Structures are given as structure tokens and as C-alpha cells.
């Protein structure tokens, strides 16, 4: 009665089914957004201000705001994240402190995004009195993407073979010279991958910017880092839930721009990683 071959066939069928249940909807989501969003995309949509209470016109200020926020976040997170990765890969010993640092990174990655929003509000907006501003939002996003950058950079640094370091040290280079001239250059693709993934995450998150920077609507572009800004993900939220009677086309168009931005960055990261793996000489 129990036929192991048949059981195997049935089991493998269900495993395949489970996989398809994830992959097919993802494909559909992307296809639908492209199909319904593409007609909205034109030069005017990308470069014009929103008009008629965001029911017409473009999304230019939201794009600009997101670029500012993402640049600010990476400017803050990349140096700290990279040096933290250098510490973990080159200096840290296998001790209690290292264990705690790793646990802190895991926790930082797991903190809910809306809690980052609260934190940014309490620290940057209220305590440091930056107000709701690009500075507050960028710093909040920067701390949020820190674990992504640390983890990816650390992996990249650790994958540089130990012998490279030994050769450099044996030639009389100091530890820092070895790191700067040998380890870091060989880890650049991995660091780049992590940075781009961090950028993508920062561009797509809404909850951390809700109370720290995001503006419902602004008639002009932000003038300084102490101004509020519009941002793509928040704009999508606003026009799909807060403003009635927005043309479906505009909603899909905004979703497409945001999705394209984020997926494009991820695609670049995947390509860099893939090419690097192929080219790897060791």
C-alpha cells in the first residue's frame, strides 16, 4: 500500500506548488504594476509638481525628496557601517564583547520600522530640535540600514583570503596599511552590494519617515536639510488612502516609479555579486 516512489512524487509536487505559490504572485504583482502604471509614465509625470490636490500633474518633488533622504542616509551609514565591519572582521576577538555586538546588529535589523519612526521623532525631531526635516529623516533611515551595510561588508571583508593579509604583513606593512591597501580593495564588490541594498531599503520604507520628515504636500522643493520633504513611498500612501478620487493611473504610475527604483537597485546588486563570483580568482 505504501509506495515510497509515489509518496515522493506527491511530496515533490507539493513542494513545487509551495514554491509557485510564492513566485507566481510576485511575478503577477510586478506585471500588473508595470502594465497599469506604464501608461502614466511620461516626462511630465516625472518632472512636474502635483496639481489639483495631487489628482493631476507629476511626482517630481516626491522623487527629489526620496533622492535627498537616501543620499543622506547612506552618507551617514556607509562610513560607520564600513568601519564597524572592519572592526568585526579584522580586529574583533572571539569574546563576549563581539558576541554582544553581533547580537546588537541582529536586533537593530529586527526593530520594527515604525519603532524607528518613534525613535527618530523622540531623538532627532524633539530632543535635538531638528524638527521634521530631511536631516531627521535621513539620520533615522541611516540607523535603520546600518545592519544591512555592516553585515554585507563584513561578509565581503571576511571572504578575502587570509594569505593576502599574511603576505602584506610579512612585507612590513602595518595592520592598517594591510586593511587599506589589500583587504578593502578586494572587498569592494561586496561592500558595494550591501550599500546598494541599503539604498533600496531606505528608498522604500515609509514608517520611519512618517513623523520625521514626510510632508503631505509641499508647493516647492526643499531648500535646505532643515526643511520637510515629500517622499515617494509616503506619497503613494497618501494618494492611495488619504486623498479621495485620485485617478487609478496616477496611483499605479507612482507605485511603478517606486518599485522600479527599488528593484533596479536590487538588480544592480545581484549583477555585481554574480559577476564578482564568476571573476573571483581565489
Amino acid at each position, binding site marked *: 500500500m505504501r509506495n515510497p516512489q509515489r509518496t515522493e512524487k506527491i511530496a515533490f509536487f507539493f513542494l513545487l506548488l509551495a514554491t509557485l505559490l510564492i513566485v507566481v504572485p510576485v511575478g503577477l504583482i510586478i506585471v500588473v504594476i508595470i502594465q497599469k502604471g506604464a501608461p502614466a509614465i511620461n516626462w511630465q509625470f516625472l518632472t512636474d509638481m502635483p496639481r489639483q490636490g495631487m489628482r493631476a500633474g507629476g511626482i517630481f518633488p516626491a522623487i527629489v525628496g526620496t533622492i535627498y533622504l537616501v543620499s543622506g542616509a547612506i552618507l551617514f551609514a556607509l562610513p560607520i557601517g564600513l568601519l564597524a565591519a572592519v572592526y568585526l572582521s579584522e580586529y574583533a576577538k572571539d569574546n563576549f564583547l563581539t558576541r554582544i555586538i553581533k547580537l546588537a546588529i541582529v536586533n537593530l535589523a529586527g526593530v520594527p520600522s515604525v519603532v524607528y519612526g518613534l*525613535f527618530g521623532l523622540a531623538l532627532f525631531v524633539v530632543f535635538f530640535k531638528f524638527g521634521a526635516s530631511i536631516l531627521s529623516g535621513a539620520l533615522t533611515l541611516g540607523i535603520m540600514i546600518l545592519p544591512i551595510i555592516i553585515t554585507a561588508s563584513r561578509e565581503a571583508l571576511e571572504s578575502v583570503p587570509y594569505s593576502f593579509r599574511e603576505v602584506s604583513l610579512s612585507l612590513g606593512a602595518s595592520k592598517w596599511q594591510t586593511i587599506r591597501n589589500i583587504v578593502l580593495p578586494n572587498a569592494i564588490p561586496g561592500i558595494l552590494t550591501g550599500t546598494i541594498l541599503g539604498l533600496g531599503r531606505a528608498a522604500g520604507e515609509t514608517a520611519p519617515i512618517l513623523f520625521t520628515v514626510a510632508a503631505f504636500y509641499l508647493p516647492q522643493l526643499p531648500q535646505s536639510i532643515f526643511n520637510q520633504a515629500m517622499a515617494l513611498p509616503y506619497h503613494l500612501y497618501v494618494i492611495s488612502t488619504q486623498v479621495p478620487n485620485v485617478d487609478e493611473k496616477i496611483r499605479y504610475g507612482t507605485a511603478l516609479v517606486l518599485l522600479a527604483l527599488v528593484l533596479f537597485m536590487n538588480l544592480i546588486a545581484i549583477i555585481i555579486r554574480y559577476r564578482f563570483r564568476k571573476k573571483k580568482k581565489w
Partner: protein
Amino acid sequence: MRKVKEFIIEKLILLCGLASIFFVLLIFLFLLKEGLSLFKIISPFKFLLGDKWYPISEPARLGILPLILGSVVVTVGAAVISIPIGVGAALYIAEVAPLKLKEVLKAGIELLAAIPSVVLGFIGMVTLVPWVKTLFKLPTGLTALSGSIMLAFMAMPTIVSIAEDALYSAPKTYKEGALALGATRWQAIWRVMLPAASSGILAAVMLGIGRVIGETMAVMMITGNAAVIPTSILQPVRTLTATIAAEMGEAVVGSEHYFALFAIGIVLFAISFAINVTADMFLHKRR
């Protein structure tokens, strides 16, 4: 001179190494600083178990039990959907799929992880919500069920990638041994590989659930946001995260409503901390 420069650089590196600890503590401290003020006004017991959330009525009722139960309902629903599918897909990708397909599937799942939650929320609003409404003949499709389905898609990438990793790093010799003894591939996977990777898979499931509990935008857009104690998955609910996101914009800095939202933040932080520390223990047990 160079010695001094290197000394400074190395201290800087150490400082950045400690930054993660610093930031976690900073987040916790600032949540406490703002949130604990609430407990001068009402007791933690009344806050956690009070069954009415009317933050702007006079006097305000600040019981978060409906919100906790809202989060629980949505999370349990998402777990029921995402765990079997996620673990199944991880098994398929790690053990069954041919190499080329494997790479494609992994990339597809990475793409899912990359889609911003506000985009998933939007897609849920325009597709899933109307389906649920007509399918169950409800007055509104903004229900806990819709939220659970959408959130399941956010948990699955986490579950699949970590579980796949756990299966991949289980010793290959186990499987070879089972196959050599005449087991079919499925028997080897089900009876040998799955138990061998069980602690990693458990960690994957926990982290997936952690992602669901902390998810904000999609859940706020499609669960209907009614702060009442849920009695069925086919009615609107409001989660802890959505409450913060929806109300903080209107709360006056320094008001009891403001403090209460931070107190909810403490609850969320504590939950995610517990989940991450436990999952990390399971992941380390494996090594």
C-alpha cells in the same frame, strides 16, 4: 607620526564597532524616556489589559488589549499561511530544484523581499481587498484575513532564505548516508535533512513572524483599522504598529496620547528583542 595616525584610526574603528550597541541602547532609552511617563497616569496593568482604546475622548481610555489581539489575529493568520508554504519552498529550493532553476527561484524570492511594504499594501488594496469582499460577501474587504494574506508574503522571503540556508549547511553526509541505505530522496529529506536543520528552520519561522508583527504600512492600508476586540478574521482589526503610524501625526508632543504611543513602541521593541535573541540562540546552536 604614522603610529599616531594609525592609533587614531584604530580607535575610530573600535568606536564604530561599538556603534550598533550604542544605537540599540539609544533606541531603547528614548522609547523608555517618552513611554514610561504614561505609567505616572495609568498603571501598566490597565494599559496592557484595558479593553478600550479611545485616546482622544475625555477622559482618554488607553487600553491596548484590542490592539494586541488585533496584532495576534493578523500574525497567527499570516503564520498559518506562510510557514507551510515558506518551509515547503525552502525544501524545494534547497533539495529538489535543479541548480539553474534554484538560482532563478532565489532571485525571485529576493525580489519579493525587496518590494516596499507600501507597494504591497497598495496592491493588496486594489486586488486582494475587493476579492475578499465579494468572496465572503462582506460589507468591507478591509479585514484581518486580507492583512494576514498580504503579511504572509512579507514573512515568506525571510522564512525561505533562512530555512534554505539552514538546510544547505546541514552536513551533506547525512543525506548521502540515508540514500546509501536505500531511502528515497523524499525520505532522506523528510526524515533526515529536516530534523538536522530543525533549529535553523525554527529560527527562520521566528524571524518571519517577527517581520509580520513589526510590519506597518501594508497592515495599516488593508486591515481596516477598527480598534475593537476581534471576534472573527473577517472583520476589520487594528494592530499595534498601525496604531502608532496612524495616530502619531495627530498626537500632541508631551500629551498622554503621545506617551501611550511610545509605550506601544516599548511593547513592540520588547517583542522584537525577545524574538531576535531567541532566534539567534537557535541559529548558534546549529554551529
